[in-house]
Structure formats: structure tokens, C-alpha cells
């Protein structure tokens, strides 16, 4: 699904700030040229000269950055500085020697996150556990350098240089970059997120670019005195212009102008302090993900943190580091645009492990080998290398290293980065076989083979963690990913199912969390499907691609939560011409076909629990008078007297035991639903308890002549918190976001998109209307978020002029996210 021109499009999308906010807007080339005058990768120096002293004027920087190739992998290297205690990271839970030698520091087996019968992860590593469950975490055990050195300095020099002896003259990643660039100039081949350049990204001819983990702002209007700021920046430019040609003053002036331009350009990409974590590695990896999303041609990103040197007070210190590592990795992949997930692998390193024997101070001393992590879409999940035996170790003896750290590096270079380990690390390296394949340029279904025609069914519950339906009777835990079998379940056939329309309902978690539904076997995207809230029931319908194993995966981020899944229909694979089935989507501008407050579609009175309302759908709101299989309706429950749910089903069919919408006393709750139309052209809608007003907006229907569905891995098109798709600012009352939904993999012929729209903490009760650009805003609502909460709803949006839709916010202000899950074409 990578658009041929995705690089430029993405770069522009990420690098362009709204005109009102960006007096120095640059095109990408100009931007790269500007950043290029910084500490840029790819500056080439003659032997013996320092590349850092290069005279820059006169060089043509236009070739200094190139988008990465379609099969290029991106490697993120996370340094754990100070020496990480591997035994407490990947815990040998049944090894009596471990308990004996680690003493009071040993992590109790019951606290760990079990990987197999003998191994548990440190309890903080929940994100790693879900990657393990998804088969995307490789643990390489027993990695070290074979000639032991217990000095931080010397050992780090070995790890960073990739050479076991001698004075380090360059780093292993730097030499890889040397070879990758082969003399070409490219500023963004390698980036260190930090304030200085570590040895491993210094090559013999190239050096990484540094990007500080903070939002640059000297260059954009910063305050109430924005006019004065702009004037001050003009003065900086004027001063630079007044410097003597060819002088260092001129270079300094040019660098100061670059500073302004870089700030203006990176400012929208990097969130402000409040938007970045206060934890060093988390903030660094948030920035790393954003830079990758901006597609600057990055192949390597490095970031490090510490301190892991736990000579004393280890339980607190190591626990904190594990928590930070876990949060950093989780945030990284959540911030990563899903379109890049198939291209990115993350690896860890540390200068050494720690001693198996604890010391007297509840700590451990400098050790030798340790396990390392590799997370990626094509990683062979599981254990690699060899776990060192603790049997027979004496007090000051270190565990043996079974994997030369250079073999670990070579496996990354050859398995993921396209080769070159011999040039970087010398001959004779062993490939550990960490990858099943290289990067996957296509991370979703090839569109031609999966366009699906909808088959509506009477709603069926396939999964309920409260009663074991679907095979599980426990709440879904924090960080856990479960699979729900779709193909072959209930009325869904076992073959040829491309995607499923499913209503997911989260039930009473202890605290706020979010749930992501995605095709099994694919990388978990950084999007959300349902936003469960503490103590209440929150539903949301989703259209989810079905993975190759016939399942969808459900990830829960934080709190234990019960979940039900009701299937409303499925999309059958069909590559050929119309089968004549009524399975194609006819998108409609939202039209209100029921409003019991106004007497639209039914009498003007509340509906009582148990009272079924028969709602005519054919021939209303743009729905054809015949030839319609199902309607897509956004149902709205308005201020019921008590909690309950609404069931919608085709007239004439038995009432199913499912919920189309769960409502709460006094609240306004929407949910999109797909309902098969009964033989008489009507559907039944029935609340369960209390009395309630009901509203229904029809947004589409399935007929013989519409568009077929193409599910995609969820992609975040809009995030006003960070400036993705729109200005990084809250959306005010009466304001509209105009969002282009085609491009970026969605063809211009697409007639509708399935978007999961999330409202983040509105300042007051409001409603959102999503409608096609170029049409009058209809009286309809797509989402009715509560103040202060995070709520989401699936929206089937008809695509308007220029591939754009509009999202209108009625009251207050809020942040908005939109995740694309499918389109209709």
C-alpha cells in the first residue's frame, strides 16, 4: 500500500505547518538543505582531516538526503548504558542457582511475565510480552565479547566500535553508514536522538545527525509577542547576511539561519514538552518515531539511556529502568505511523551484563554476557543464542558469553539492513538467523485480491470473556493481546473472509485504557479502536481485516477488562466482477432517519425498555427503495433513565442476544452499526431498560452496485495533539477539520472510508459531524463525546471533493484522532 510518492507526500504532510503558523515554510528540499548544514551524515572528508571541519559553502546540498528505498529496513538501536542485569531481565525462573546467587535480588517466578516453562520476563516488560505473544520478539541470550573487560569505558568502546581490541577509530553503525552511502551525501541516513554523537554512529567518512529530544522553537513565533519574534528572526537573518564571504562568521550566521529553519520545520513534527514524556528514553523514542514518520530518509536511529549500573539499591533502580524501557518501546511503536511498521526493527545493547552473585549492597557488579532484545515485523520470535549456565560459578566468576556481540551485529546488518557485515565487522561472522525475511514494503493485503463484498448476518456474539465464549474466561490484562477467531465462527464461513464488521464492547475496567483491533499476524498499529472507561461499558464497532490465520487480534493497553465481540457481517474476498450479491457499499451523506425527540421516523416520545421500534429504512435518507442487503447506521442513545443496551436486527429474524449500542443513564452515547434489512424493508431497534430517546443516522447501505471494501492496517491520518493531518492545536467550537483521506495508499477512486474517530477530552459536551467536503453539513452526529473523557466511534465517511472529508465540532474544544481501517472502492 505504499504510494510510489509516499516519501515526498509524507514529508510534506509532516513538515508543513499551517500557513498562519509558519512564516518560513519550506519545501522538503530546502528543508534538507538547511538541516544539512548541521552535523550532517554524509559529509565526506579527505583522509586525515576531520569531517567536522569541512568547509560547507559551495557544496550543493540538494542531493544530501534521499528517501529510503522500497525494500530498505530501518534500525532503531537502544543503548542501556551502565550494564544491564540480564538475569533479572530475562529471568531463568526454575534455575536454583539463580535464586541462590542473585539472592534477595532474584525476581520471584510468580511476578514474571511467563514466556515458557523456564523463563519469565521482568514484570515491567509488558510491551515486550505482547511482542513476544505476537511472535515479533527475539531474545538473543548469552551475548558478550569473548575477551572480557569489566571497565564501562573499555567495554562500551568495544560494543560501540564493533571491534574487540584496539583503540576505537569508528563505530560499527558509522561504518555501515559509510558503506551504505558509498561517498554519497545524505543527511538523514543516521540520526542520534540526543545532544551529542556517540561513537557507534561515527564512521570513517560519515557521522550521524543529532536531533535533540525537545521541540525546537527559536524560529517560530513563540508567544504573545509573535510579531516581535518574527522581527527578531529577521534580524538574525540580517546579521547572517552581513558577514564577510567565506569567513567562519558567515558559516556561523548560516548555521543560525539553519537553526531558525530547522525549528520552523521540525517544530510541528516534535511535540512540545508537555507532549513528550518526561522520561528520557520515552521522549527520545517518541521523537524517533516522528522522524521516521516524516520520512527523511532515515535508516538508522540511535538513542540511549541509563543508569543501569546497579552496584547498590538494585531493585528500585533496575525496576525503574525496565519500566522506562518498556514505556519507551511501547510509545515508539504507538507513535510510529502504521505504514512504517513493516520497515522498522528495534534492538538493544548494553556494555555488559552483571554478576550472577549479588554483592553485599543489594546490587550486582560488572558482569559479562547478557540477553538482548530484537523487535520487528519479520523477526523470528523466540529464543536465540544460548543461555549461560550458572552451575558451578564462584563468587567472582562471570557467566560465559556464547554469542560474540559482533555476530549479533552481523545478524542485524545482513538480516535486516541489506548486508555488508563483512565490510563493517570483518570476515567470519555467524548469522544468528534472527529474521524470516527482510523488511516488508507491503504491510497489508494486496488490494486486488482482497476487495470484499459485504455479507450481512443477523448479529452473533462470537466472544465474551465473562462466559468463555470464544475460548477465554478471564479479563484481558494490561499489555495483553488476544486473538478472536472469525473465519469459521458462527455463521462466518471458514474461507474467503477478508474483513469483519464487529461490535467490540469493553466492560468495566478498573481504569481508563484503550483497545486496538488489528489483523492477526500483522504488527500492532499505533491506533485505538475502543476507549474503555473505568467502571462503565463502552462499545465501538470496527471493520477489521482478518489475518491469514482467520483471526483478528485485540490488544489491551492498561487495565484488566472484559470484552465482548458481536459480529454484524463480514466481507468476502472477491477479486472479479460483481457476483450480483448485494455486498457493495453505497456511501451516503449522513441522513437522520430516526429521531424520537422530533418525531422523525417514529412517534415523538421516548422508547421504553423492551419496546421494539420498527424503523423503515428503504427509500429513506438516500437508501434505495430496493436491492439493499444491509444498512450502515449510526445509532444514538440520548439520556436514558438507566443503563442498558440497544439491539438492532432485521425484521422477521429472531431477536439476537447481542448489543448494538450500550447506553448509560443520563448520557449521550453513539455507536455505528451495520444491520441487515428485513424482508419488509425495515429493521427492529429495541432498548433493554428504562426509557430513552433514540436517533439513527444512515451513512451507507450495501447494494449490488456500490464499492467493495479494502481493509488496511489501521493508519493514523489525524492527530491534532501532534500536528498529524492538521495543525497541532485543539479544535474549537464550531470549527471544522478538513482532512484529505485519499492518497497515502487510499486510491482517489475510493468512495468511502472507514475511520475510527477518537475524541480526546473535550472541554464540554459536544458532538461531531463527519461529512463529505463540498456538501452542506447535515443534521447528524458521528460522535458524542463526554467532557474530560476519551471516546471513539467508527465512522463510515463518504469521500467528498478532492478526496476530502470534514469533521465538525459543535461545542467546546478537544483533540481529535482519526484512524483509517478500510476504504471502499
Amino acid at each position, binding site marked *: 500500500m505504499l504510494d510510489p510518492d509516499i516519501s515526498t507526500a509524507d514529508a510534506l504532510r509532516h513538515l508543513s505547518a499551517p500557513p498562519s503558523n509558519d512564516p518560513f515554510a519550506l519545501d522538503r528540499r530546502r528543508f534538507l538543505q538547511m538541516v544539512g548544514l*548541521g552535523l550532517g551524515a554524509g559529509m565526506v572528508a579527505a583522509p586525515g582531516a576531520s569531517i567536522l571541519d569541512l568547509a560547507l559553502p559551495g557544496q550543493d546540498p540538494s542531493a544530501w538526503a534521499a528517501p529510503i528505498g522500497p525494500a530498505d529496513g530501518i534500525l532503531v538501536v537502544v543503548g542501556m548504558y551502565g550494564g544491564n542485569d540480564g538475569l533479572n531481565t530475562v529471568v531463568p525462573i526454575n534455575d536454583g542457582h539463580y535464586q541462590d546467587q542473585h539472592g534477595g535480588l532474584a525476581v520471584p517466578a510468580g511476578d514474571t511475565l511467563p514466556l515458557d516453562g523456564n523463563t519469565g520476563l521482568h514484570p515491567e516488560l509488558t510491551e515486550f510480552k505482547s511482542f513476544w505473544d505476537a511472535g515479533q520478539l527475539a531474545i538473543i541470550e548469552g551475548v558478550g565479547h569473548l575477551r572480557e573487560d569489566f571497565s564501562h569505558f573499555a567495554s562500551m568502546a568495544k560494543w560501540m566500535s564493533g571491534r574487540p581490541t584496539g583503540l576505537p577509530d569508528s563505530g560499527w553503525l558509522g561504518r555501515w553508514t559509510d558503506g551504505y552511502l558509498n561517498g554519497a551525501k545524505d543527511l538523514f541516513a543516521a540520526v542520534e536522538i540526543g545532544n551529542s554523537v556517540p561513537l557507534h554512529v561515527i564512521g570513517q567518512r560519515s557521522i550521524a545527525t543529532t536531533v535533540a529530544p525537545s521541540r525546537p522553537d*527559536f524560529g517560530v513565533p513563540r508567544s504573545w509577542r509573535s510579531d516581535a519574534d518574527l522581527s*527578531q528572526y529577521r534580524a538574525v537573518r540580517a546579521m547572517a547576511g552581513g558577514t564577510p564571504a567565506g569567513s567562519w562568521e558567515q558559516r556561523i550566521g548560516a548555521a*543560525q539561519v539553519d537553526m531558525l529553519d530547522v525549528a520552523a520545520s521540525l517544530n510541528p513534527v516534535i511535540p512540545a514538552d508537555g507532549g513528550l514524556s518526561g522520561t528520557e528514553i520515552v521522549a527520545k523514542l517518541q521523537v524517533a518515531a516522528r522522524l521516521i514518520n516524516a520520512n527523511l530518509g532515515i535508516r538508522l536511529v540511535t538513542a540511549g539511556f541509563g543508569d543501569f549500573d546497579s552496584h547498590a539499591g538494585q531493585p528500585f533502580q533496575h525496576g525503574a529502568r525496565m519500566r522506562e524501557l518498556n514505556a519507551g518501546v511501547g510509545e515508539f511503536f504507538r507513535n510510529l505511523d502504521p505504514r512504517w511498521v513493516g520497515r522498522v526493527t528495534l534492538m538493544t545493547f548494553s556494555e555488559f551484563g552483571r554478576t550472577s552473585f549479588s554483592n553485599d549492597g543489594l546490587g550486582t557488579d560488572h558482569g559479562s554476557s547478557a540477553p538482548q532484545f530484537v523487535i520487528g515485523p519479520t523477526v523470528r520470535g523466540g529464543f536465540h543464542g544460548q543461555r549461560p549456565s550458572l552451575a558451578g560459578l564462584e563468587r567472582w566468576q562471570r557467566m560465559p558469553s556464547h554469542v560474540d556481540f559482533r555476530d549479533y551485529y552481523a545478524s542485524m546488518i545482513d538480516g535486516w539492513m541489506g548486508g555488508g557485515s563483512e565490510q563493517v565487522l570483518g570476515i567470519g561472522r555467524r548469522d544468528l538467523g534472527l529474521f524470516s525475511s527482510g523488511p516488508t514494503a507491503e504491510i497489508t493485503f494486496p488490494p486486488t485480491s482482497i476487495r470484499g463484498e459485504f455479507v450481512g448476518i443477523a448479529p452473533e456474539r462470537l466472544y465474551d470473556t465473562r462466559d468463555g465464549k470464544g475460548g477465554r474466561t478471564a479479563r484481558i490484562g494490561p499489555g495483553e493481546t488476544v486473538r478472536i477467531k472469525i473465519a469459521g465462527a458462527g455463521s462466518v464461513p471458514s474461507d474467503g473472509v477478508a474483513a469483519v464488521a464487529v461490535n467490540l464492547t469493553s466492560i468495566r475496567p478498573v481504569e481508563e485504557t484503550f483497545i486496538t483491533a488489528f489483523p492477526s499476524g500483522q504488527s500492532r498499529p499505533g491506533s485505538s479502536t475502543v476507549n474503555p472507561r473505568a467502571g462503565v461499558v463502552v462499545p465501538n464497532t470496527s471493520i477489521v481485516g482478518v489475518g491469514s490465520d482467520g483471526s483478528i487480534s485485540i490488544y489491551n493497553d492498561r487495565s484488566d477488562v472484559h470484552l465482548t465481540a458481536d459480529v454484524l457481517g463480514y466481507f468476502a474476498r472477491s477479486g472479479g466482477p460483481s457476483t450480483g450479491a448485494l455486498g457493495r457499499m453505497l456511501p451516503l451523506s449522513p441522513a437522520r432517519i430516526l429521531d424520537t425527540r422530533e418525531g422523525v421516523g417514529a412517534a415523538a416520545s421516548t422508547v421504553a425498555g423492551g419496546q421494539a421500534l420498527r424503523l423503515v429504512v428503504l427509500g429513506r435518507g438516500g437508501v434505495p427503495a430496493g436491492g439493499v442487503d444491509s444498512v450502515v447506521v449510526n445509532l444514538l442513545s440520548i439520556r436514558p433513565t438507566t443503563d442498558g443496551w440497544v439491539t438492532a436486527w432485521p425484521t422477521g429474524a429472531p431477536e439476537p442476544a447481542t448489543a448494538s449500542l450500550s447506553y448509560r443513564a443520563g448520557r449521550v452515547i453513539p455507536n455505528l452499526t451495520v444491520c441487515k434489512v428485513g424482508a419488509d424493508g425495515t429493521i427492529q431497534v429495541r432498548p433493554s431498560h428504562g426509557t430513552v430517546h433514540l436517533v439513527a443516522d444512515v451513512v451507507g447501505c450495501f447494494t449490488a452496485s456500490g464499492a467493495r471494501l479494502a481493509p488496511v492496517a489501521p493508519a493514523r491520518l489525524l492527530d491534532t495533539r501532534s500536528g498529524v493531518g492538521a495543525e497541532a492545536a485543539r479544535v474549537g467550537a464550531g470549527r471544522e477539520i478538513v482532512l484529505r483521506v485519499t492518497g497515502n495508499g487510499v486510491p482517489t477512486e475510493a468512495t468511502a472510508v472507514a475511520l475510527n474517530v477518537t475524541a480526546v477530552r473535550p472541554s464540554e459536551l459536544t458532538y461531531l459531524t463527519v461529512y463529505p467536503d463540498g456538501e452542506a453539513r447535515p443534521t447528524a452526529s458521528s460522535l458524542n463525546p463526554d467532557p474530560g473523557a476519551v471516546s471513539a466511534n467508527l465512522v463510515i465517511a463518504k469521500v467528498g471533493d478532492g478526496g476530502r472529508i470534514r469533521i465538525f465540532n459543535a461545542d467546546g474544544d478537544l483533540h481529535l484522532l482519526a484512524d483509517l481501517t478500510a476504504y471502499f472502492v
Partner: protein
Amino acid sequence: MPDLNEVNVRHLLRRTEVVDRPQRVAALLALPSLDAAVDDVMNVVPDPPTAMLDGPEGSEEWRRGIRLTDHWLGRMATAPRPFAERMAFFWHGHLATSIGKVGSADLMRDQIDLFRRRGLGAAGSSATVTDLVSEASLQLALLRYLDNHKNFASSPNQNFARELMELFLLGVGNYTEADVEASTAAWTGHTNVPTDRNAYFFDEPAHEPSPQQFLGRTINATRPPEQAGIETIEVILGTGPLGSGTVPLAAERNGGRASNAVAAEFLTFKLWQEFGEAATGSVPVGVGSAMTGALLGSGFQIRPWVRAMLLHDDFYSATARTGLVRQPVEFMVALLVATGLDTRMENIPNWLLASVGQQPLYPPNVSGWRPNGYWVNAGSMSTRQGLVEHVIQKLRDASWYGADPHLRFGPGGSQVITRADVQGLPSGALVDRFAALTGVQPTAGALAGILEHLGDATVEPTMRVDALSLLLSAPSMHIA
């Protein structure tokens, strides 16, 4: 002999005393010759005060290290003749040692004090490179930083012996691996007391007793074993009884030349890059031969060597005058002096220095900091801008909004005005006033830029702050 004029004097002061403070410019211009001016600059106190490391806010080594840094930067900004402090900073970058590995502020202070007292030497001092490197090599800071405290006959560690030749005295390619091994053997046994990691100790039983062939000389044979390491320095520099060694023909460069001549060129290149210019990547033949001649003719005395540089025409050439970018520490000191915060170092958090990439006591690696281009990029300029804004914020806190109606600028806050003095000034007069107060003269280009911002009318208070910010961050402010 170069002329005694304002251009040359300002250049001399900026390079040796970091800032061309107005009263120093006036004092030197009153002297009869540039020769006398150089003598004045070098007329440093023989025994500058040492830093007090203990204080109320804690005794962790890093915190004590910050006190050492503050003291040192304060001396660079306020000492009547700060050249010894600046020269110590050169040696700190040359014999680079990090407290991060040494782990002791006391050991770092011992080393920095050695550099401050013997790195230039007061008038009449015959301090030599041999003495300086030898003394530093018997201090635990350097020994531990380069792992020589673990260099024993039974388990040799080459780190220190290798860097002594490669980075400190000779340069890579001017020795063979056999010389590294011989020197390593000579340096065995210099370690710490087993029960006190901060006390130096020569462990004679751990010393390798066998004679060694080093740069063509036999060492570790006749002198007491604890002097065998020093013997390697003497052979390299040709300052001991064995005379100068010879670069082996098997070495990659300079095979067959006397090692002291090679060392004199190597050291001269490093000094010239620090104080002359780092733009050309070489030393002009004239000043180069004057400097190496001074070293070789004096047994590697430091004062004649430095003096040869400061009195040579090449030092005052246009290439030299425009050929060095201020390192962050120099830029920081210049800011402190301009804003009168030089005596209030506590206002400058140490992390600001870390953010601009040059935190004293924390060199990035054993090869120290790099010059010029290393500091000229968007990211580095951005962090320097942060420094300027921080300093101005402190100035505002102290004067703009405080009870004291006075604004203080210049060395020691000696330039005192009231707010009324700058209120209502037209832009041109305001910039002139700030330039006089801070001692920072804008170039014509910078002045035009600032005036473009201020406009012609009377300058508003916030714009006055901007004017100061622009003055202090102008490109010429970043030139050494």
C-alpha cells in the same frame, strides 16, 4: 615584530584571556611594544587559588566536580590575567581526563591545579612539557582514566602507554607496536593503594623488571623502576640522559627522524589549533618553525614556546584572526563577562554547559574536544541561543524586576546604569549604549541586523531585551 595596535591587542586578549575586556585593552595599549604586551599577558600569578569542593548541597563527586568547574570558569572570567586558566583548559583537552571514569573530584582538582600552575608557568618559570606530562602521569586521575592502575607485569594494560604516544606526545604512526609494549612494561606498577583508591602507590613487585627497547633506546635498565615510565617521556622528548629516541623505520610515518623533533611538531600543531587557527588544518611554516625551535632549543620549556607563537606575525594574520570559533566554554565566559554575571557563577546551571556540548571535566573521549566546524551547526547554535537566553533571563531577574533599580553589565558588573538611562533612547543610541556596557562591539553587519529589528522609533522594553540578545548572539560573538 607585529605592531602594538588595537586590532592586535584585542586579538591577543581574546585568544589568551578569552575576552578583550576594555580595561585590559587600554592597559596593554599603554605599553611600549607588543613584546611588552605579551609579557604582560603571560605575567600570571605563580600559585592561583584552588577550588573549595565542599559545600552545603551535598558531597557527591559530581556535585563537587561542579564546584570545581564553577571555580575554574569563574577564574577564567575574573582573574586579572586569566591566561594560565585558559592554558590549563588547553591541557585539559589535550591530556583529556573525565571525572565520569576517574570518579573523584579531588583527583580531578589535583590534575587541573597542576595544569593551572605548571601549564604555562609564571614569569621566570622554566616549566617544561616533560615536567607537566610526567607529573600528570603520576597522578591517579590520568592513570585511572587510561587504566594504568591495572597495568601489571602479570597482566599488562596498554591503554595509557599507547595514548601517551598517540594522543599526548607523538601522534599516531610514529611508533611501532613493539614500542607500545615496551612502554607498557615501563609503566607497570603505577596504581593506587589497595585500600585507598584515591592514593597513588608504586607497586614495585608488579613492575616488569626486564630492560626494554623503546624508540631505539634501552630503557627500564639502570634507573630505579618507578622512574622507568618517566624515562619513556624523556626519550620521546629527548630531555633525559638517554637523549632523543628515533622514530623506527617500521613506523608508518617519520621513520628515522628524531622523536623529539616529531614531538615538537605534534605539540606545536595542537597548540596552534587551540590558539592560532584551526581553519587551514596546518601550521604556517614561519610560526611553526619558531615554535618547534623554541621547544627544541629550551628542552621543551613551555613559556618560550608560547611566547614564540604570540610574538609571531603569523599569529596576527587575517587567517589567524578569523580562523577560530569560540568553544562553548569560551562563549560562556564571554557571556558572563559581558553581562556582569562573571562573579555570580551560581546563576549558571552546569547542565547548560552540557547541553552546548562542552562540560569541563567531561571530555567526550581521550582525544578531547574538536575545534571550529564541530561547533558550527544548527543544533549547536540552537543550544548556544539557549545559553544567551538563560543569561539574559538571569540579568532580568537580578535587575529588571528586582528591588535594585540598577542594571549591571561588564566585568564584575562594573558598568552600572539605571533603567532610565536606556529608556526612550532611539535604536542607534541604544545599541551603542549596550555595546559600551557589555564591551561587545557589533560588526557593521550585525548592527544593521539589530537596527532592522528595532526600527527607527524609541525602543520598547521587550525590544531592548531583544537588542541585547541579538548583540550577544551575533556571529562575531562566536569568533575567538
